[in-house]
């Protein structure tokens, strides 16, 4: 039986062997692995980059007090970014599935169109949802734009939903029944957290306080940008984004306010993206030198017979 932990270890080992920096989760609340600066900012500009990490992703409105066997307010994403996208990226992905123990010749694997768009990040991409035997297991995206900037080179982003994937492979009836590690169930590790976070996001969170924080974080992001501190500014923007999500789950955002708030977050993300590219340029795009990232040569050559 495949455990969640196995999955993380095997995916990490696989992508590390492909030259990825094994990064750690961002220590802030984010809605998706894409928002980690090692994805959102690194895909900008000309520097090559390969990274893989687990990112706990919070979607306050998806919380179900630990009651719904298929939905979580906080789930784990395994995130991979390859920049530039190698010619054999799809084959690499298929190999990664073999690495977690799937014998693909027995399964039905399909790539169905699913384009990704994050208006609050001024970002969009083109790609697929990957369907394994009728179940969506991965989001596969070629980033085209981020922070309102056209991207070149193009990054491939692969996002595995870890709980879903584990649950599906185990044909488990509930997310909470999957094994984190042998003898310890996911529910035993996380159910209390799901319940308490749901209660907090839906019932307890103090709306005026959160609104104050959002306004304050927005100002702080501006101050950081003015001081030329891109990464702290981006962190403030992420905090704004999370506060917005909590307010939304709390039912404190009206339809009209929503548009305005999303624009504020987007403006911050776009400003950070531009400032980031400028800051990297000032540093002479340090990762452009060959070998700066293990396994990344900047070229996108096909490896003959790689996935065969």
């Amino acid at each position, binding site marked *: 039986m495949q455990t969640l932990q196995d999955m993380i270890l095997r995916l990490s080992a696989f992508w590390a062997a492909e030259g990825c920096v094994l990064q750690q989760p961002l220590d802030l609340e984010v809605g998706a692995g894409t928002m980690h600066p090692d994805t959102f900012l690194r895909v900008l500009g000309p520097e090559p980059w390969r990274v893989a990490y687990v990112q706990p992703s919070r979607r306050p409105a998806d919380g179900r007090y630990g009651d719904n*066997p*298929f939905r979580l307010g906080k789930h784990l994403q395994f995130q991979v970014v390859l920049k*530039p*996208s*190698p*010619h054999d990226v*799809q*084959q690499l992905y*298929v190999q990664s599935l073999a690495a977690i123990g799937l014998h*693909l*010749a*027995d*399964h*039905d*694997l*399909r*790539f*169905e*169109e699913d*384009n990704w768009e994050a208006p609050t990040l001024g970002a969009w*991409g*083109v790609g*697929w949802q990957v369907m*394994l*035997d*009728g*179940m969506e297991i991965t989001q596969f995206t*070629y980033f*085209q734009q981020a922070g309102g900037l056209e*991207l*070149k*080179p*193009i990054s*491939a982003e692969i996002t595995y939903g870890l709980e879903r994937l584990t649950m*599906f492979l185990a*044909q488990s009836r509930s997310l909470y029944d999957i094994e984190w590690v042998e003898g310890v169930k996911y529910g035993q590790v996380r159910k209390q957290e799901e319940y308490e976070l749901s209660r907090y996001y839906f019932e307890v969170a103090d709306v005026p306080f959160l609104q104050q924080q959002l306004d304050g974080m927005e100002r702080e992001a501006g101050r950081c940008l003015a001081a030329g501190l891109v990464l702290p500014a981006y962190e403030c923007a992420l905090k704004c984004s999370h506060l917005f999500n909590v307010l939304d789950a709390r039912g404190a955002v009206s*339809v*009209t306010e929503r548009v305005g708030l999303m624009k504020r977050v987007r403006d911050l993300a776009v400003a950070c993206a531009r400032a980031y590219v400028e800051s990297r340029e000032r540093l002479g795009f340090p990762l452009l030198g060959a070998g700066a990232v293990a396994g990344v040569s*900047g*070229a*996108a050559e096909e490896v003959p017979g790689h*996935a*065969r």
Partner: protein
Amino acid sequence: MPGEYLLEVRSEEIPARMLEPGMRELATRLFEELMARGMAPREVATGFTPRRLTLVLSGLPEREPDREEQVMGPPVRAAYAADGAPTPALTGFAKRCGVAPEALRRVATDKGEYLAAVRKTAGRPAGEVLAELVPRALAGISWAKTMRWGSGDGPWVRPVHGLVSLLDGAVVPFSLFGVAAGDTTAGHPILSPAPFAVADAAGYRRELGSRDIEVRPGERRRLLAETMRQRAAALGGRLVDDPPLLDKLAAICEIPGVLEGRFDDAFLELPAEVLSTSLRDHQSALTVEDPAGARLLPYFLTVMDRPDDPQGRARSGNEWVVAARLADARFFYGEDRKAGLARRVEQLERLAFHERLGSYAEKSARLAALAGAICDALGWAAERGDAVAAARLLKVDLATEMVKEFTSLQGVMGGIYAREEGQPEAVWQAVYDQYLPASTEDRIPRGRVGRVAGLADRLDTLAGIFGLGLTPTGSKDPFGLRRAAQGAVRIALEGELALDLEAMAKVAATLYGDRLTRGVAQILDDLRPFLHDRLRYLLGLAGYAYDEIEAALAVGVRDLPDLKARVDALHRMREAPGFLTVVLAAKRIANIVKDAAEQPLDPALLAEPAEKDLYTAFAGLRHEVEEAAATADYGRCLRRIADLAPVLDRFFVEVLVMAEDPAVRQNRLALLQAIGRTVSRTARLTEMVVDKAEARAKSGG
């Protein structure tokens, strides 16, 4: 057979919706380019799977025809000096064209005589032409959405991985996004990934076939449908047909394998609409019903991109997902019924219809008032109560969990819940049918109540959005107003709602109170042509000619069934004897009286026999025409008017309208004005297009 070109582009998975249009564009573009070079192939065959576009040209000429082209040079007068010697203009031109000066010929033009050279170009071999055309045609496909990849390659629909380009077995070389064309392809990426070389189209199809891959989407679709029907029969039922879904399934596989799955019988307690929507939207699966078509059986059928499933993995995976999805649907169904529709009405206050047009609660109140007004205008007193009740319930299902999950069930779900809560049949059916017709093939709502409710909904939306000045332009129609208008027109036409739509649109606009930024008159001025355009389109679709529709529209629209009756009468009459004469006379009358003020007619002043006869004939049938028009018997109306043909003919031959005597002239104008008014009771006949030859023959004879 010589002259065969095989092209295959292998790429990462191309979205299903883009495959067919992309392939069609590629084939058309190549064919046209080849034809323009005198190299049209005898046959073009295409195929595609998510991972490959295939094109086979057969019967290609070996080479382009040789071309002769005339290049114009200097005028003859500038080509020779006074002594007859060639000038530098002549020699220079001959040199530029690469011909001897003696080889130049003289060409007469309307600007005088010129020298010209004949330039001969030998046609290139087919391979050379293809090597130039194919990459350009491929790169030029206008995909609905394109992307870049790697270091910035593209734009194309998805990254390209392989190109086969073979003319009679020899590679036609070119490259696209860094991929060089050759003779090698590969099978299914997981089941048969090893590359292999092909020599021609037959070999290509054979090799793919041995790997279970079928490149013709039509064939995949046929195989899928056939296998699914067989499976359904083996399960003791029959397949519930879903042509658009089958199209999609054929476009998302290259191996047309059918996956059969079963779900728990307990889920059959869900309404069939919910089951099939969940299976279709989430799992792209078709359902199976019992032979009587009365209920669904606990099975589903979909595609798998593989020939079989010996380990049962694909099946058990799909069954697991379906079970999870249906459990979700059952949860929503239970929650929704716990609350009941009436209690959800208040939730509509928090659902915005449009940020500037208020909530769905407000919309519901307007719909109730408008439905009442429509019933009043139609004199449908018996339906009024149900129509108002249905209008109030119409949008309530937007607040249900089921519709939040499956937006395509809106309307249908409300109808089901209303039925289960014991609402009268007319009411729940009205809610159920409210979005009909959504497409040209759809029927309109069942029954009067449903038609009134559906019409009210559309008029409210049209009046509201037009009231904010958000008129659709070009291809931009974010609120689906064209579809709304077309639905309104079809309901009125096919539902025989003898209703002044404009008056009802006015009621709809007034019900918005001060929410709208534009005045009612202005809204109607914009809405009228918009509705008339849909009307023209729909009547055209029904087989009526453009001029018949315009002629009927020109006399004003009282209600749509009436308008259609006029168009229909015109359509039937236009071939009848005498009708052409009347149309020509109407045009003539219109010309003559064009600038004349309205004149009183004094029969006593009529002197000439032809005008007296015309008056007598006209007076004799005027009453009948008016009566036929009043009872909407437009056929009779037009037939009586056609009876005027002989006297009208004679009148125009024998009588001079513009007589010297002003009193006689004015009286004749008055007679024509009166006739003009009467012949246009059904339609403005001057709008009718008359075949010129026919008209000449007529006036000559």
